[in-house]
């Protein structure tokens, strides 16, 4: 679609190692100073089928995936069949000559001549690396680092195959336009959304993570578990999601900043616990990584259809905040923010992400970890009043929090309606005040809401409204339309609850046309905006086939609509 970026798609069966080449290539590209957006598409199986790993890269900032493929690397025939029509006019297919496919954009590579089958991946990596203009030495180093504990023999062989691939490609009469040289810092990191959430949580002071495996949230657990000993945290796989959230609540109650992560179905099981956290006023951060539903749906694909669920989850009424990061950096910072709010307002705070974003690697600058202090704890070690009352009424609705066993004060928390001291009550006057106390905290949460980000033309003919992981795609589509002479603005929400009408409703009114762009089938944000502002966003670009929203998708829909 644009010649400023190159989109490399590696496709093949699960188990063929396409993620390996994908990751090495991504890291090499990032270390060369380029920007990347990775899109992983895989099936709910361990071997076989068809998976793909697409890396879009560029010298300027790349913010969205792209459908058009500039270099296709098929590890099997199916990949060509499935992705051929995505190939751009100048695109190339880098394929093993053994694949036996005739295609005038195809480059048949004599992989088998260079090394045995198991090095095919490395060979393909070499060809692509050369084509896009990477430095051989850098790719080789990246590879070595990736294969960490490899014997010297294999390291040498890998290197050799890479060299052959580079040399062979250099000799081909190809005019593929390489990436321009850049002089960016080479300490760029490669991180996907879930990794950034894990890192953000660690930096915020996470001490306890409990979970039950569920795609696409599991990688948060994997990332945290791998670091648990070093960081002095506990990561525990629970017997089910209900246990996961209740454990985290227990750990938070006794003083460990806690988080849980899951996806729609697992989250449905957690919702009673969400209500418990609210009632007992226990801080907890909950990550919901969305995938297509109902029920088991498409476990390894993406969707944005659980926003309303998360917003209304848990019986009864209580305040909450829902963050929906749109960049990897936001994953990091909003996770920190989630811990802050959870501590301050003592209740459930949500991070809403999705499969696309969970698996989407990006090149980012390192965070200033050293300068970032963990979130301030909300508990006090001594109490001003005695006996200590866990749910003392205050103007803000926030009561002083103490921890059991840390002082002589007794801490009593209750899932039943309770009086200020935490003991069960049936006093209905107290009940009413407690409801008001809890809801009062919502005002505080509202006061620190992140306003949606308005970008683009000042007097737009059209405003594109969006939330969460589609941020990049929407921005790119808008800028594309602007370069076609249209006046477009975007209004993107990285926090979808609370919504503060005053922050954005005028932006919605100052345009002729509003379009809401969402990865679901019913337009959940549009509905919510109408509920909170009265503004109807009649036009919607929705996607619900399990794939992420791309700039092309938006443009196609806006033109055909």
């Amino acid at each position, binding site marked *: 679609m644009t010649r400023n970026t190159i989109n490399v798609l590696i496709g093949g069966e699960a188990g063929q190692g396409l993620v390996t080449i994908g990751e090495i290539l991504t890291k090499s590209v990032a270390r060369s100073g380029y920007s990347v957006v990775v899109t992983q598409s895989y099936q709910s199986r361990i071997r076989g089928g068809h998976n793909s790993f697409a890396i879009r890269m560029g010298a300027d900032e790349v913010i969205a995936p792209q459908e058009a493929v500039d270099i296709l690397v098929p590890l099997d025939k199916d990949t060509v069949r499935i992705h051929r029509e995505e190939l751009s006019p100048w695109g190339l297919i880098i394929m093993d000559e053994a694949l036996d496919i005739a295609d005038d954009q195809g480059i048949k590579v004599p992989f088998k001549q260079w090394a045995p089958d198991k090095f095919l991946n490395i060979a393909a990596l070499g060809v692509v690396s050369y084509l896009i203009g990477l430095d051989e030495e850098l790719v080789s180093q990246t590879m070595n680092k990736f294969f960490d504990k490899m014997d010297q023999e294999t390291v040498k062989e890998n290197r050799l195959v890479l060299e052959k691939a580079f040399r062979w490609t250099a000799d081909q009469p190809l005019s593929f336009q390489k990436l321009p040289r850049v002089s960016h810092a080479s300490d760029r990191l490669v991180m996907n959304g879930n990794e950034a959430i894990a890192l953000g949580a660690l930096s915020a002071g996470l001490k306890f993570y409990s979970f039950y495996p569920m795609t696409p949230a599991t990688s948060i657990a994997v990332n945290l578990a791998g670091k648990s000993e070093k960081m002095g945290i506990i990561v525990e796989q629970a017997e089910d999601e209900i246990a996961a959230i209740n454990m985290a*609540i227990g750990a938070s109650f006794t003083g460990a900043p806690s988080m849980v992560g899951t996806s729609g179905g697992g989250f449905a099981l957690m919702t009673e616990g969400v209500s418990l956290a609210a009632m007992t006023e226990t801080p907890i951060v909950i990550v919901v990584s969305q995938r297509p539903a109902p029920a088991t749906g498409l476990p390894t694909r993406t969707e944005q259809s659980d926003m309303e669920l998360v917003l209304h989850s848990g019986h009864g009424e209580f305040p909450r905040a829902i963050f929906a990061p749109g960049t990897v950096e936001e994953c990091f910072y909003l996770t920190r923010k989630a811990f802050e709010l959870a501590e301050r307002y003592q209740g459930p705070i949500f991070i809403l992400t999705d499969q696309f974003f969970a698996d989407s690697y990006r090149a980012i600058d390192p965070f200033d970890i050293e300068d970032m202090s963990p979130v301030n704890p909300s508990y006090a070690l001594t109490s001003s009043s005695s006996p200590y009352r866990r749910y003392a009424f205050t103007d803000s609705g926030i009561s002083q929090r103490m921890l059991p066993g840390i002082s002589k004060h007794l801490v009593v928390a209750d899932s039943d309606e309770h009086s200020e001291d935490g003991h069960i009550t049936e006093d209905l006057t107290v009940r009413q005040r407690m409801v008001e106390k809890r809801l009062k905290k919502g005002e505080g949460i509202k006061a620190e809401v992140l306003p949606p980000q308005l970008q683009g033309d000042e007097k737009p003919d059209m405003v594109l409204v969006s939330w969460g992981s589609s941020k990049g795609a929407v921005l790119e589509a808008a800028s594309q339309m602007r370069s076609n002479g249209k006046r477009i603005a975007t209004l993107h929400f990285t926090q979808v609850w609370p919504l503060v009408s005053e922050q954005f409703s005028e932006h919605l009114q100052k345009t002729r046309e509003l379009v809401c762009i969402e990865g679901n089938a019913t337009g959940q944000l549009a509905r919510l905006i109408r509920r909170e502002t009265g503004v109807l966003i009649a036009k919607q670009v929705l996607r619900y086939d399990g794939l992420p929203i791309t700039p092309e998708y938006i443009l196609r829909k806006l033109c055909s609509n």
Partner: protein
Amino acid sequence: MVTISDYGKYDTTWCPGCGNFSILEAMKQALVARGLEPHQVLFISGIGQAAKAPHYLNANVFNGLHGRSLPVATGAKLANPELTVIVESGDGCSYGEGGNHFLAAIRRNIDVTLLAHNNQVYGLTKGQASPTSDEGFITKVQPGGVASAAFNPAVVAVAMHAGFVARAFARLTDNLSDIIQQAIAYRGFSLIDVLQPCVSFNKVNTFAWYKSRCYPLPKDYDPTDWYAAVKTADQWGDRIPVGVIYRNERPPFEEHFPVLSQGPLVGRDVDRMMLKKIMEGYA
């Protein structure tokens, strides 16, 4: 020195004559005997008549959801292993709604004591069958009698090689108190299934019914003999043994976490240099 009065005296919402009263007394006695002060103890409970027990003494309390006290206890203990964590809840809570957590707690061998008030009925919701109701037990929602076999928590726990398994009878208060003390002292998961007459809804397994059946395990009973313990735990009907049925020396769950050797997680700082290194690993 801690005394019974430190644990206070509260009005309860229990029915007069309920077996819960003796359990509450035995618990206080045991805490005092163990020299535990109220702030050192954390009670966790679910929902039910039994689950209200922690409201009736002085201690730290987390009264959570029906059936979910064991996961809360697990998290609480992991975050602060110095607390004495005791779960008190009913048979419905512990073996019905919470059945899966019961299995998991045994497997983990987390250092938590589960004291289940087993009245073989759902008290608070007015008399439906519980998992431990005997077959044939008639209630308003089981007018033809319970069709499922009764759940025997002790035999399941022993079969799973749980760390510490005991059965008690509420009205044998001293015996119960003694068992509670042992359970608290035990480093690992301890189950105390306490037979508790419910005067309002269980007109079959009454005080007299239990009393005529419960007998203390003989002095020479060896609770470390697993195979014998299975048989002992399985005994139910005319004769019901009470006492510590089984115990072993499995390491408690907490020992698997090196970080916990330094005590509670609270207040630990974030090792930012380490985190920076971790971050750099993403290069």
